């Protein structure tokens, strides 16, 4: 099975090293196309004017924030249920990237909200649940760094991640359940998207670009984490086999 090929860290490193240049190139191209379309092809919104262009980073960042957490949740299942050796590495590395995307979503949403709706922040359901998601990401990052042993930290973080998965459907459906300030769902809906293709296409291209960026960074970070654990075990081994210090003078027998 494909996943088992990735269970061996050395093999994983090699496979990732082969795939990386392609991922980086594809990501750069998709971003170039997406940004061009966002600025030069997408029309102005009849209500919001040019500020709708903020949507082309705000929405993909928010989607990625949730996708990142799903990746962490799946990895946590991998750690606890299937005991896949690289699952906790995947979970640990997804956390900072997910936190960064959530941060981008919150800040760009705030900067979009000020000119359009007159306020940087409001405690409506969507914004609040995304803020909670951000706090959970940061909490997981802290948990990873406070526990010395990466394996134990992985198990603890996995449990916390799975419990927190409850927040994801709240984030997604909050705009439908509580009708406050944030716009209701217009892309991923039962009846299909309600956005005009001229705006939908650049949006999807930017979303693809962000997704490729996430996978590239995630795989690179996983490589780093594997190296970090190698360093740690080498240091532990060096410490355990170190010879005790020799005295500078020879021992004189008692007279």
């Amino acid at each position, binding site marked *: 099975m494909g996943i088992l090929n990735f269970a061996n860290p050395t093999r994983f490193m090699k496979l990732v090293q082969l795939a990386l240049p392609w991922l980086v190139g594809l990501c750069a191209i998709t971003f170039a196309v997406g940004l061009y379309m966002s600025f030069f092809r997408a029309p102005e919104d009849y209500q919001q004017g040019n500020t709708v262009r903020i949507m082309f980073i705000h929405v993909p960042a928010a989607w990625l924030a949730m996708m990142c957490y799903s990746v962490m949740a799946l990895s946590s299942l991998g750690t606890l249920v299937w005991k896949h050796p690289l699952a906790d590495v995947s979970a640990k590395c997804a956390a900072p990237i997910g936190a960064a995307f959530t941060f981008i979503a919150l800040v760009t949403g*705030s900067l979009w909200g000020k000119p359009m709706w007159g306020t940087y*922040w409001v*405690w409506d359901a969507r914004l609040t649940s995304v*803020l909670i998601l951000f*706090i959970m990401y*940061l909490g997981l990052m*802290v948990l990873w760094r*406070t526990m010395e042993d990466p394996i134990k930290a992985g198990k603890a973080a996995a449990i916390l991640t799975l419990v927190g998965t409850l927040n994801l459907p709240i984030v997604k459906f909050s705009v439908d359940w509580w009708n406050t300030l944030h716009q209701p769902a217009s892309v991923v809906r039962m009846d299909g998207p309600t956005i005009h293709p001229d705006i939908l296409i650049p949006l999807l291209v930017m979303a693809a670009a962000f997704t490729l960026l996430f996978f590239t960074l995630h795989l690179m970070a996983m490589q780093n984490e594997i190296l970090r654990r190698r360093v740690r075990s080498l240091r532990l081994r060096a410490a355990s086999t170190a010879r005790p210090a020799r005295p500078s003078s020879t021992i004189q027998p008692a007279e």
Partner: protein
Amino acid sequence: MTGWAIPLFQRELRLAVRVGGGAFVGVLFFLAVVSVIPFGVGPDLHLLARIGPAILWIGALLATLLGLDRLFQADRDDGSLDLILMAGRPLELVVLIKCFAHWVATGLPLVASAPVLAIFLNLEPNAMGAVTLTLLVGTPALTLIGAIGASLTVTLRRGGLLLAVLVIPLAIPVLIFGVSAADAAIHDPVPFLTPFLILCALTLITGVIGPIASAAALRFSSN
């Protein structure tokens, strides 16, 4: 005197930053407290703007309290506290330097994050600036008062909650004048400087009383 003071300061700073989270956890807790308040109080932005300075001050106080048991506990656990006590340096100055390093590592990040959290509470820019300034002047006082509680509870295994209970009554004046100064900047009748200067005075007073009381408590606990 500076011969030993600066290395001690650097040691404290390095330990505070490296060990288990440090500033990051304090700021994260601050963020969590500020996020939880609207759940209890309701999302009315006008109400939040009115009580915003108080929320930020209480959040900073709680975040400082939680970080305080790292002031002496780790040193006591590995024996360095005994070494410091036996080293013959003036214990009051040692405590002062430890408090300063602790404030730089945990209090200062709280002050830096206050403007960002003020956005969540819908504070006006001048209120944001006033709260940040009062926090900048007042959080050292919180650390110094906290040092008293930390040294009283250093011998206890689960001293954390007791530490908070001991410190809160002593910290109330700082809280009162901090919030009062921040509010004075928003509403005109009371000039900002009156409560602000009293806050500065409180910090200076705790700068003297804190180390003296803390050093005395450490000496008692070591005997």
